């Protein structure tokens, strides 16, 4: 039984990581509009923090395989697991899609700040500050689009995903 669960975990983590990569690529033509945040929130609520973290690590690694190794690698190994942990911890407190929409908006607004902190580790504080202020418009777009996407899609997607995952895990 334990062995079967582990195989199912690996399959789930692989499929869901792939869906994150596909989701990111599908919207990559619109700067800072993405569904990765929504998917991470939904996956974490259905699977918990531990599996969510594994999905985040596989997703970040896949991004490196696609785009190559650069400074953002460190950011990706930090920021997506951070979202998973925050979602997992707040999941018991948030009762509606509005709460998750606000969480996604804050995450989007702060994304550039975390990226700037990451850049300043490599290139210094002055560079990090310029990086952050010059990207504020993109952060605004990221925050607002995250809010709208999660507000509209969280409920139906969460219902669908949690149902599919439950039935998959229950199968013998």
């Amino acid at each position, binding site marked *: 039984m334990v062995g079967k669960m582990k195989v199912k975990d690996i399959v789930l983590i692989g499929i869901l990581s792939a869906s994150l990569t596909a989701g990111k690529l599908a919207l990559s033509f619109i700067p800072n509009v993405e569904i990765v945040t929504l998917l991470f929130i939904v996956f974490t609520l259905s699977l918990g923090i531990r599996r969510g973290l594994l999905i985040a690590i596989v997703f970040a690694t896949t991004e490196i395989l696609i785009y190559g190794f650069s400074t953002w690698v460190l950011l990706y190994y930090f920021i997506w697991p951070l979202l998973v942990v925050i979602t997992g911890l707040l999941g018991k407190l948030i009762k509606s899609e*509005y709460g998750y929409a606000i969480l996604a908006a804050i995450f989007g607004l702060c994304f550039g700040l975390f990226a700037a902190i990451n850049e300043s580790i490599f290139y210094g504080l002055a560079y990090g500050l*310029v990086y952050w202020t010059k990207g504020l418009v993109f952060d*605004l777009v990221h925050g*607002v689009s995250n*809010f*709208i996407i999660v*507000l509209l899609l969280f409920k139906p997607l969460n219902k669908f995903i949690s149902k599919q995952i439950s039935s998959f895990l229950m199968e013998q």
Partner: protein
Amino acid sequence: MKKKIIWIVAVLLVFALALAAYWTFLGPKANEGEKKVTIRVIVEKEGINKSFEYDTDLDFLGQLINEKKEELAAEISDMGGSFVKGMAGYVADESKNEFFSIKINDVDAMVGIDEIPLTDEDTYTFELTTW
């Protein structure tokens, strides 16, 4: 659904206000009037070291480069903002990690050409570099 639409409209209004505040307080500021500026292009491996002098009343370096694109033999790509890929007929080879660094009076620029205000007597140097 009506409640959600109201929320979305409210958030979009806040977004518009935040955007206006950004451009007012943090957006690039142009220097008005006539300016005499120099654009220098250095590609050492090709023996290119050219200077172009312009009298212009344009506000930003990006505007000037786009206007003088043919004379500068510049190649610009739009990546959410203008990005200089080629100058003086030489296009940076990404597979060799090449790019054009931008210096304003020999000091590294912190922003792209769209946000560099043209200033009288300034020299803007584009030098092929690798990262």
